[in-house]
């Protein structure tokens, strides 16, 4: 008998870190499966997390596949399931099934410069691919991160970003002026124009709010990036995660299965249903 | 011998009259069966039909809504609205074939500890022969 993909594997929350407080809080969870299983994933893939009694939510895995000890998810409190996750404590049990989705085509990117552009919680899917690339530095060209949030308080992975600066170029921004902020002030797409990453032998990966992605892509194009050089991820409401329940489709693509990673060359031809 | 069926009753008691009446029953050390779990609401007028349906859905064998006597409502007229609303719910539940004994309404003033005691005793006695309420109980 084949595995019943709908049955989640139980996992224990081993660490919870509060990334962002306030009205739109974000927490990062590290989980460990209670029983060993062959859960292996690619960067950019997602997993369906269960809070039993509340339901499931599709969350992108923010840790790198190179780490086998735990899975990491950074979660914005948004609805029924994510609110329950935010209420959980270390040691609590959740369910995980997956991984789902296509993931980033990192094989294709070998030898190229990687430009990561993120906004808000959009850094979570990037985080996985960024760290994988960082670990395999020799396989890729120069990497750079352009990341912004509403305010400095809304920036996720604050300490890790400080660490990251030692290893790659990191350009941060906040949307509105605030005292003590020394880096760029303004929306992420504007920071992209400010920094002017070179399209030459590069791949740009952008995740964040749809409106940000829209203008980042516009600005990348203005900088000379081709559609094929731009990658992004798409979010839609999901239930099954395996292309059957029928709700997350964009045209004939099921985001859960055929996505969530798309190059702009692919995405621009799909109907705007996300 | 099989254990006697003990009906589960949810009672929505208004704070000012019925819950106070129930308190009086306690202060007077009256005795009544422990089948009722009271839920204190501010006014019988605040008892939404949804509360009643939900209680039956969650397995209540009986539901009681109790408020102040007409004219005595702490909030002047909440119990009059309750009376109308509950009458409709009661008729509807009766219509779909739920035993009418399962859903009751009463006026119990803060001075009527005895009446409250009697209502609970009667309610439990009336529900016992009916057995568990399965008609509207969750069958997931």
């Amino acid at each position: 008998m084949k595995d019943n993909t709908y049955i989640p594997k139980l996992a224990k929350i081993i660490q919870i870190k509060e990334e962002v407080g306030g009205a739109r809080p974000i927490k990062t969870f590290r989980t460990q499966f209670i029983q060993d299983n062959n859960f292996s994933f690619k960067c950019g893939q997602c997993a369906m997390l269960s809070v039993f009694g509340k339901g499931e939510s599709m969350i992108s895995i923010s840790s790198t596949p190179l780490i086998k000890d735990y899975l990491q998810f950074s979660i914005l409190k948004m609805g029924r399931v994510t609110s329950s996750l935010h209420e959980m404590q270390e040691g609590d049990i959740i369910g995980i099934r997956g991984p789902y989705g296509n993931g980033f085509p990192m094989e294709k990117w070998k030898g190229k410069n990687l430009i990561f552009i993120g906004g808000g919680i959009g850094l979570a899917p990037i985080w996985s691919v960024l760290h994988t690339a960082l670990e395999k530095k020799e396989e890729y060209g120069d990497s750079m991160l352009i990341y912004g949030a509403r305010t400095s308080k809304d920036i996720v992975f604050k300490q890790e970003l400080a660490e990251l600066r030692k290893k790659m170029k990191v350009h941060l921004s906040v949307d509105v002026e605030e005292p003590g902020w020394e880096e760029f002030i303004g929306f992420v797409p504007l920071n992209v124009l400010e920094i002017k990453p070179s399209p030459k032998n590069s791949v740009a990966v952008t995740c964040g709010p749809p409106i940000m992605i829209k203008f980042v892509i516009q600005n990348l194009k203005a900088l000379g990036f081709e559609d094929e050089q731009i990658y992004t991820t798409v979010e839609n409401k999901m239930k099954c995660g395996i292309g059957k329940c029928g709700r997350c489709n964009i045209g004939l693509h099921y985001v859960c299965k055929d996505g969530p990673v798309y190059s702009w060359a692919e995405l621009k031809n799909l109907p705007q249903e996300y | 011998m099989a254990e006697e069926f003990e009906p589960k009753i949810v009672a929505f008691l208004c704070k000012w009259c019925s819950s106070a009446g129930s308190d009086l029953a306690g202060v007077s050390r009256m005795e009544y069966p422990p089948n009722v779990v009271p839920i204190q609401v501010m006014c019988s007028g605040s008892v939404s039909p949804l509360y009643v349906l939900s209680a039956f859905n969650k397995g209540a064998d009986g539901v009681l809504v109790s408020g102040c006597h007409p004219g005595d409502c702490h909030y002047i007229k909440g119990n009059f609205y309750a009376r109308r609303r509950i009458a409709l719910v009661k008729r509807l539940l009766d219509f779909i074939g739920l035993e009418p004994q399962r859903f009751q309404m009463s006026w119990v003033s803060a001075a009527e500890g005895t009446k409250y005691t009697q209502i609970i005793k009667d309610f439990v006695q009336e529900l016992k022969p009916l057995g568990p309420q399965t008609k509207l109980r969750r069958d997931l």
Partner: protein
Amino acid sequence: MEKVLDKKSFPQWVKKLSSYTVYAPVQEDEVWNYEVITNPEQVNLDFPNTVLSPKKIIFPQREVYLEFSASNEDGLEVKEVLPEEEPSVIFGVRPCDARALTLTDKVFGGDFEDIYYWKRRNQVALVGLACHTPPSPNCFCLSVDGSPFSKEGLDVLMSDLGSKYFVEAFSKKGEQLINPAKTLFKPPTEKDKKELDKNRTEAKKRISRQIQNIKKIPPKLKGMFDSSLWDEESMSCLRCGICTYLCPTCHCFDINDEIFSSSPLSGKRIRTWDNCQFPDFTMHSSGHNPRQGKASRLRQRIMHKFQYFVERYKNYQCTGCGRCISRCPVGIDIIEVLDKVSSYEG
């Protein structure tokens, strides 16, 4: 395998299938539906279209995935719940509904096999009944590559020859149905075959409704995502779930946790039908809805059936049963909509 069965012997055949759970159309008031049969005499194959197709047996509206409860050790216990495997047979399956199952097979197969679907699918044998006269005035199977005597998806097909049935078995499952009652079946005569042919020719003629230029529609739809046609055609749509719930090919579902108790926790994870016409189907928890408005939802239904599905699986996701037309509370007619797509300019 081709046989004939005297109509009078039909109940006896059903009787022989005592090891099966037998489903057949049952009438209650004015409504026909497939129900479990306890008395073989009860089976009446003289029925119009059932309200729900056999989809409701193989892909039931409610399927329990798992049960969960608080436990002392790990804090939580999760138990997989699978449908019980027992052979069953459905009599009186319309060819269009059987074809529909071949389409849901595609959806529930593939990379991730849906165990729940296949557990039920594999144990059920489908005995079809060819449509001598269209069971609904809105039948249009011929337009979508089907026919009133299509064998696709069926294990057995019965065709009415007046006093007897012409019975064809196409699969091992089908033959296994006939074997226990072998003696009841006779080989068909040439006359029987001729009559069958005649009936079939006539049956086709009786289907009055058809989609114009169906072949043109999938490519045409590709360019019509932003068309104003959807607004116009959806004006009267009420956003109910009739067209999709009744559709034999629609397969969308929802998964929810339904609980008995929150402390200590106990409950079930349950799959239920869902459908693209409900506004909450695609709504994100942020409130953003990629398919805001009923025009986008009507478009999704049409596009899914006549473009996306065609592109993915090379079939229309429609078998022409006509239920969505007959039962639409406001008379939205998929044939009319598709005809408008065909003739749409601009």
